[in-house]
């Protein structure tokens, strides 16, 4: 009993998304499918899940060739998929979401809630997937929502489970728990495909690692016989540097001064609780911390997107407490927002339109209220080249670009001018190694050009690689400061609030 994909080829207009790809998964095996954004991983899995039809190639389950016309066929054949963006109904309970579509019914077609609850509890205990069956989805954390998705898949008796970037949305602790869950599934004989672009995770949990690049399988390795560097080389097809090359910082004047800042979150709870720090010209200050410790609110407080309850924010000699984002733009502040698609881009807009999203109001992009598209196009074409945005053109909707290239559009927009202060929140979340490397080098270049840089990231490696000083945020406060070469364990402890 094994799942075998053979010679899968899938063409989209102008793109060969999968080129003669073969992959197999045995029961009780975890296969990591590793590759950059745009390598064709998701296309392959969408073919396996019946969402796309392959142009060539076969899918064999248990020696029997199968054709999937829809995901219903794939589910019936025992294939389950946990999507990156969960498909749950927020106002339904965990149980309701799990049984949705195949509700156990009792007398007169009424939903048998007790039976449904039993089912959920059963799966939950068997695989150690802790959930409250009666909790509403909207009230539970992302990590728990993922467990619900897994239970949903298991409830449909999946033998093979595909996880699409399962760790992208999880906190470090949740990632650990998730790996535990994977172990359980494995022991139970499920075959698992784990799509990721995080090398460390692939090495940690996989029995076998398959690397894709440009629609092809370019290599296969056993975790015990390969290194991170080897895998990274395979993924991007050239030698990559996992550290960021940079000179020591030459610290200048104080640019950003945050004093006793207090910001409330959407529940009116103090998310930022009296934070003070400075960022000087020519240095990168990194804020490390487990997600949800007030970093988002801190950035929104500094950038005028969320009102400050008290405290002050100063840019040079200008008070920018509660300044409008437009004013900050005029004061040469760049902001790379944390939520790329939610607040950084208008997905329906073209690359060109997104590239001028915050600077459209002035020359050279417009005069008065008249947009100057000719000069905009020239500028944007230049920027696309300069910032290595891989796009078929500047008029295609930005939604058709890969995550890494979408992020490069934002970086180009924010960096293509003289800036005094750069605020970058999660600047490389969920993007491929090549783009990460590129964006990091751009951030360092801005620092070297004399900008003050504030980087917030939940990836400690990223903060350590970029920052000249590391501040650790915990429960809305800055609890510790470290040099970038400080001991990881110490920083980790501070992130968990146990530092003194």
């Amino acid at each position, binding site marked *: 009993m094994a799942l075998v994909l053979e010679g899968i080829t899938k063409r989209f207009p102008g793109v060969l998304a999968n080129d003669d790809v073969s992959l197999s998964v045995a029961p009780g095996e975890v296969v990591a499918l590793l590759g950059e*954004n745009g390598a064709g991983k998701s296309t392959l899995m969408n073919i396996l899940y019946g*969402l796309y039809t392959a142009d060539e190639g076969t899918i064999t389950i248990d020696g029997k060739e199968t054709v999937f016309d829809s995901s219903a066929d794939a589910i019936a054949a025992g294939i389950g998929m946990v999507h990156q963006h969960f498909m749950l109904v927020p106002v339904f309970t965990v149980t309701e979401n799990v049984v949705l579509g195949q509700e156990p019914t009792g007398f007169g077609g009424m939903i048998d809630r007790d039976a449904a609850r039993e089912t959920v509890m059963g799966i939950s205990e068997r695989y150690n997937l802790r959930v409250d069956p009666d909790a509403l989805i909207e009230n539970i954390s992302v990590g728990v929502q993922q467990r619900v998705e897994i239970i949903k898949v298991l409830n449909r008796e999946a033998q093979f489970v595909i996880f699409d970037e399962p760790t992208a949305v999880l906190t470090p602790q949740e990632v650990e728990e998730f790996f535990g869950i994977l172990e359980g599934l494995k022991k139970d004989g499920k075959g698992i495909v784990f799509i990721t672009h995080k090398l460390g995770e692939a090495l940690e949990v996989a029995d076998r690692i398959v690397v894709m690049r440009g*629609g092809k399988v370019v290599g296969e390795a056993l975790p015990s016989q390969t290194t991170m560097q080897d895998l990274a080389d395979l993924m991007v097809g050239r030698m990559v540097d996992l550290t960021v090359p940079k000179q020591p910082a030459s610290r200048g004047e104080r640019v950003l001064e945050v004093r006793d800042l207090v910001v409330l979150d959407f529940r009116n709870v103090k998310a930022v609780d009296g934070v003070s720090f400075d960022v000087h010209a020519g240095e990168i200050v990194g804020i490390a911390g487990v997600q949800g410790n007030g970093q988002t609110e801190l950035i929104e407080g500094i950038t005028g997107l969320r009102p400050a309850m008290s405290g002050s924010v100063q840019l040079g000699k200008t008070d920018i407490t509660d300044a409008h984002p437009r004013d900050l733009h005029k004061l040469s502040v760049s902001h790379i927002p944390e939520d790329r698609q939610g607040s*950084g881009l208008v*997905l329906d807009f073209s690359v060109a339109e997104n590239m001028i999203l915050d600077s459209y*109001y002035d020359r050279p992009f417009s005069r008065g209220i008249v*947009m100057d598209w000719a000069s905009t*196009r020239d500028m944007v074409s230049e920027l696309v080249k300069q910032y290595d945005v891989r796009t078929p053109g500047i008029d295609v*909707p930005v939604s058709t670009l890969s995550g890494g290239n979408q992020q490069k559009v934002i970086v180009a927009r924010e960096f293509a001018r003289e800036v005094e202060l750069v605020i970058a929140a999660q600047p490389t979340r969920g993007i491929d190694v090549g783009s990460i490397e590129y964006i990091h080098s751009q951030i360092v270049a801005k620092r070297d050009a004399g900008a003050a840089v504030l980087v917030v990231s939940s990836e400690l490696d990223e903060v350590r690689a970029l920052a000249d000083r590391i501040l650790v945020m915990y429960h809305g406060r800055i609890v510790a400061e470290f040099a970038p070469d400080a001991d990881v364990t110490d920083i980790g402890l501070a992130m968990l609030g146990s530092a003194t």
Partner: protein
Amino acid sequence: MTETRVPEEHESQPPQPGTLMTRATGVGTSVGRSLLLPTLAMVTALVIGAIIIAFSDIDILRLLFDDPGAAIGQMASEVSRAYRALFRGSVGSVNSLSETLFAAAPLLLAGLSVALGFRAGLFNIGAQGQMLMGGLAATYVGIYVSLPGIIHIPLTLLAGFAGGMIWGGLAGLLKARTGAHEVITTIMGNFIAVFFIQWILTTPGLQDPGRNNPVSAALSGTARLPRIFGSGYRVTIGLLIGVALVFVVHWVLYRSSIGFEFRAVGSNPEAGRYAGMNVALVVTLAMALAGGLAGLAGANQVMGLEPYKASPALAGAVGFDAITVALLGRSNPVGVLWAALLFGALAAGGRAMQGAAQVPIDLVVVLQALIVIFVAAPGIVRAIYRVKAPDEKPTQLTTGWGS
């Protein structure tokens, strides 16, 4: 340096798998590509309309059992009689053309109002109320101001625009300030407008002397819209104003920074906010401009339509048909022009059909509804004609080609 490139190329992008509203309103789709579907939708609607005509005569249905051949022949002649009348009444003569254009003018103005709203992410259900308020304001200026026509006409139109603008802007302001959804506030605005006009038209000074129902006095001659083809044909320069505004609205949306803000906020208000746009102002302004366009449609109804008097019925159902026109025109100014002309033709032709073929004008409403259903649910038309969805991928779950 051809400055004309960007919008066209932008619009020729394949439709994005967007939200339901995005897809239904056609925001983000092109004129060229969206011409095929509406045409097929119209053909399909006419076929179904033919079936309805054929089967709605009880005598023919009885005959169907006795002499199927004769019955089918009669059905065919019935259908052809009706559709020929529809055709003649809409484009068959100069007068029918004039009637078509005459009916299209207010639909065009109000349709632009709804389309502009859609582009800014706003569902303006309130064109009806904005028309009434615009019509009322125009009536005031049309009756009480005396000026030569060359100034009086623009001033009266401006009053109509302002009346609708205030009414629409109010809904925008409520949304911007309190988050009240514009669908609710504009619907309520419609009710308020209709009762307000019913009351105010019975007050002395506005009410037509000697009447006891809510009808205004007639606008002075200098405030009436001139007819384009002479007094024999009813179409006025209101149509030309509408056509000019097609270009203006297109320019605003795609060539001005205000339109850039409308479209950005309409598509992703959060990104607009992060990019430093004043979302509250953008929403208010978009609703105000949309209201102004509908107000012009209202002004057109009192300034261009005999007996040049305001009444609570001055908007007819134009404000609601405008939503359909905007949907059919895929929220594109040029598309709205075609849709308004089509609906104008159906309205003019429908009257002729009723007169000549005794087919009730309600059939026109059925045809309109069918066209819109087929446009809003393109899957049906695609299935019938086996048109492949252009460049649309199946249910997309990820962004980009790969992971």
